[in-house]
């Protein structure tokens, strides 16, 4: 039976694509533009308040899921770009490098978010 495990990586890739498209622009606009450059941030950007929000468990979980899936999205995309650029012969090596990179990032995110 020809049932490729690519299905698994692709499911992370597509879920990560949804996460990245849905949340990343909002995060970037909020933390990169709105809060620092408008008066909306004056009260809210205070360290204690942000810390309070981020360490609330539901927020930690959401952030973790967003980071984890987005990393695997990137890894899968980079692997396929490299394959298309002619590295198809070493696709197993690419897969190992890209996905273990994403896994390392995921562990780091778990550590950071868990110890905040």
């Amino acid at each position, binding site marked *: *039976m*020809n*049932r*490729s*495990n*690519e*299905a*698994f990586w*692709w*499911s992370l890739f*597509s879920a990560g694509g949804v996460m990245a498209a849905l949340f990343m622009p909002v995060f970037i606009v909020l933390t990169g533009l709105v809060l620092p450059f408008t008066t909306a941030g004056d009260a809210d950007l205070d360290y204690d308040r942000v810390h309070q929000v981020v360490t609330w468990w539901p927020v930690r979980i959401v952030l973790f899921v967003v980071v984890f899936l987005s990393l695997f999205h990137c890894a899968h995309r980079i692997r*396929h770009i490299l*394959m*298309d650029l*002619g590295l*198809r012969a070493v696709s197993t090596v690419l897969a190992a490098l890209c996905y273990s990179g994403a896994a390392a990032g995921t562990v780091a995110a778990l550590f950071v978010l868990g110890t905040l």
Partner: protein
Amino acid sequence: MAGEATITLEVFRYRPDDDGEATIQDYRVPYHEHWVVLDALNWIKDHADGTLSFRWSCRMGVCGSCGMMVNGEAKLTCAVFLKDYYPSAIRVEPLINFPVERDLVISMDDFLAKLQAVKPWLIRDDEEPPGAEYLQTPSQLAQYQQFSMCINCMLCYAACPEIDGIPDFLGPAAIALAHRYNLDSRDQGQSERQEVLGGEEAVWGCTFVGECTAVCPKNVDPAGAIQQAKVASTKDWYRHVLLPWGKR
């Protein structure tokens, strides 16, 4: 042709039995506003050079046999007008990503084998063929109708950048056709087709470049069909891994 408007066609020539060299040959062809590229090729065949070989049949975008590269783009030559290029020369070449048999004629063997591989017919568990038609509601028809409009013109294979890198890639039209039967309420063959569809060289060969959908003259949207087939293959994979004892 004195005084008459003309246009130059730069035509790819390859005759394996002669010199075996691929060359480009220029032909000056009368220019008419209502002529398509295929009319110009037929004029060459009838008046200038009877040795030129190319495929065509219906002249109206139905048979799918006249696909060629026109100035580097995969087109049905019966559907592209000279006036869209005039007065510049038009280069006509065989579809890329296929072996050339002769002049503008490509070999379809590999493509036909891929179509055949996905079992593009209604598969039923019934032992006996039914005495009457299988009934279907308009909404069941709407599920797959778009994917059934394919005329096998192979433009999508010429447009797809993955075919070049993965020669065994099942390709847009064959995957869209498999998906068309999988979506058909009368069909029961999804698991049989999945054996071909779920592989590395099938749906997973596609990285969603989308060129197949861009060139398709019948709005089949093969890229959309492949994405849907990826979702179906992913569900199949999880079902197999999480419920290995379940129904295959």
